[in-house]
């Protein structure tokens, strides 16, 4: 049985067994793709060869966020940061610990890309070994769960989450405390907690990175939620394309069970909680909560009309709490630091931080976690460093296929749920694609519409076949073969899908079209022609 002292003892043991120098080598998916595993082994070999075993530890850590510059290596104590490290440079890095010459490209922690970030959910990313529960415990892990189980009633937990102002990070921004309260008061013989790690937006990898870098943070958040709403079983739904995240979660669950942090009578209380992983096949729509539930139940992953909401009628008909990975990632920090601390970060109605995947025509790409309310301009120009070749920025796309394009003129918009919605986009799960003056906005709209068309589940008519018609119209416009009447039809279809589609996929599929029409209409109109043309092709 795990007790609070045991946590502290483990943490202490872990800290004392640490060597003088810790070198962090990112072994998450992004850096693995650029050869980080080989580098990791070479670093270990170099330590061995230099006879530095007593003094230096090479730790495989989670994502540091600067994935575009990977593989990334950092030296813990003095904060040196190495970028684009090649395996053969390992000895050089080890030698540099003792002042040896080192030509490996160095990053700068004072760079706004790092300095302007604020790490709550990603605070352990790039710092701890995600495959060892001891490292998580050494940085205070599972103390929040202990605190909750021994010193707070479920109602108090819910109250804390409510007061923190946390809102769902899965896209819609629904107040988390309110959702927990609904599940808690819904009658049911059993209740479930589901963590939504489906992350289907093209280009998004925030949740993958969190799961790979700090799996116990999510397990702890889910456990606290389960206690608050009265659930005894949790499911982690992760897409099959995330094998590393799944492997690390499996490891984390096994370790947590071994230390009685999952299972029965956790921390010697009557609280029991078990977590299982469910691997999705990677359909975008399975991120929609009712489709996800159907998928866990073993049925075809298709949404159903809401109400009833999962909070009342979820998995196998029981009240079910479903939150996003990043949402769960905020829970333990809120409990540890207090609701008021959290509520002090961000804007009036959007509290805390948000993780974004900054990509596209921008110098510094990668994962960033910034306080809500930072302006798009600050993110793109300061953290992102503008476009790589100095071409003027045209806009950003946020929210993926459900989001919209925001023109440069509106870059002083703060990133918070309401402001982004006002300018015709959404916060979404955190994709942020920077576009420069050369970007063709009609093509952007067409790209996202193709995605929605391919990912439509096919259950409801407006989305299933409306997206096909919209995609064809956009292709026709793009090819310079459409008339003003075609553009009008496209706009009517936007309206139809928004108002009549069954789930969020179809309802928000028009967003990229409508937002580009709103700000870049002339790009569409330039392509229109007066008369209908039929190609006498294929002769």
């Amino acid at each position, binding site marked *: 049985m795990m007790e609070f002292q045991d946590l502290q003892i483990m943490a202490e043991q872990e800290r004392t067994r640490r060597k003088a120098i810790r070198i962090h080598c990112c072994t998450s998916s992004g850096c693995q793709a650029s050869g980080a595993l080989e580098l990791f082994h070479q670093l270990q070999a170099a330590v061995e060869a230099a006879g530095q075993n007593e003094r230096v530890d090479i730790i495989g850590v989670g994502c540091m966020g600067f994935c575009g510059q990977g593989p990334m290596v950092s030296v813990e104590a003095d904060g040196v940061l190495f970028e684009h490290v090649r395996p053969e440079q390992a000895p050089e890095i080890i030698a540099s610990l003792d002042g040896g010459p080192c030509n490996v490209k160095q990053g700068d922690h004072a760079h706004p890309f790092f300095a302007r970030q604020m790490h709550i959910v990603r605070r352990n990313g790039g710092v701890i070994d995600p495959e060892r529960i001891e490292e998580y415990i050494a940085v205070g892990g599972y103390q929040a769960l202990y605190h909750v189980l021994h010193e707070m009633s479920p109602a108090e937990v819910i109250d804390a989450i409510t007061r923190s102002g946390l809102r769902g990070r899965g896209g819609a921004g629904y107040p988390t405390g309110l959702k927990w309260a609904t599940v808690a008061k819904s009658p049911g013989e059993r209740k479930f907690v589901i963590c939504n790690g489906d992350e289907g937006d093209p280009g998004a990898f925030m949740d993958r990175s969190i799961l790979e870098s700090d799996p116990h943070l999510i397990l702890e958040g889910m456990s606290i939620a389960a206690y608050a709403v009265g659930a005894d079983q949790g499911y982690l739904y992760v897409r099959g394309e995330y094998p590393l995240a799944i492997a690390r979660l499996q490891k984390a669950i096994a370790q947590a069970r071994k230390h009685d942090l999952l299972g029965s009578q956790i921390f010697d209380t009557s609280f029991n909680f078990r977590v299982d992983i469910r691997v999705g096949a990677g359909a975008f729509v399975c991120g929609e909560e009712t489709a996800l539930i159907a998928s866990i139940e073993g049925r075809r992953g298709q949404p159903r009309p809401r109400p009833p909401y999962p909070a009342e009628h979820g998995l196998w008909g029981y009240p079910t709490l479903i939150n996003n990975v990043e949402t769960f990632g905020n829970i333990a920090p809120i409990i540890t630091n207090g609701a008021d601390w959290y509520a002090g970060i961000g804007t009036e109605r959007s509290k805390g931080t948000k993780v974004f995947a900054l990509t596209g025509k921008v110098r510094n790409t990668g994962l960033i976690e910034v306080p809500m309310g930072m302006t798009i301009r600050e993110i793109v120009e300061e953290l992102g460093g503008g476009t790589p070749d100095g071409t003027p920025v045209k806009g950003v796309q946020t929210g993926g296929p459900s989001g919209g394009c925001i023109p440069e003129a509106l870059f002083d918009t703060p990133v918070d749920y309401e402001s982004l919605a006002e300018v015709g986009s959404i916060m979404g799960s955190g994709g942020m694609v920077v576009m420069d003056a050369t970007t063709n906005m009609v093509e952007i709209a067409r790209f996202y519409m193709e995605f929605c068309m391919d990912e439509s589940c096919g259950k409801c008519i407006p989305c299933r076949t409306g997206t096909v018609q919209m995609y064809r119209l956009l292709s026709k416009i793009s090819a310079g073969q459409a008339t003003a009447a075609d553009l009008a039809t496209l706009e009517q279809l936007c309206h139809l899908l928004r108002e009549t589609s069954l789930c969020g996929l179809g309802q928000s599929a028009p967003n990229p079209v409508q937002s580009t029409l709103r700000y870049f209409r002339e790009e569409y109109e330039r392509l229109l022609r007066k008369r*209908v043309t*039929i*190609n*006498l*092709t*294929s*002769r």
Partner: protein
Amino acid sequence: MNRLKLATVWLGGCSGCHMSLLDLDEWLIDLAAHVELVYSPIADQKTFPEGVDLTLVEGAIANDEHLELIQDVRERSRMVVALGDCAVTGNVTALRNPLGEARSILQQVYIEHGDPRGVLPSTPGIVPILLDQVIPIHMIIPVDLFLAGCPPSGPRIRAVLEALLAGTPPELAGGFG
């Protein structure tokens, strides 16, 4: 009396819609008192005339000749009526659409299911060129009235014509098929 100028056009259809019109028998004689038939497959006029008041179009757009003619029809008619399902939806004429582009259909018809040693017909300027897809006429020109049915029955055609002659909005009861 100043009679209205009526035209009827036969595009990609089976002529059944025209048969339905002819089915109106002696009413056609009454009709002739009000309209002058200026262009029709059953009249001897080679080019589509100017200043037509009302044109009934049977059939879908299936080849380049239809494509050209329908533009003239629109430019020279005050009112265009899509007569029958082929004109309105493509219908039977469009049954070939799922089978692929024109070339592959000709290949299937003339070579694969015809004479394996044969050749694809090609007589430029005489036999019109097939379009890859058969399309309803409103995809090319604005259409004022759609009269569905395969064919629309004589009485329905008559009801529409009577209403139009009387200047009242026609009743389009009845659907496809």
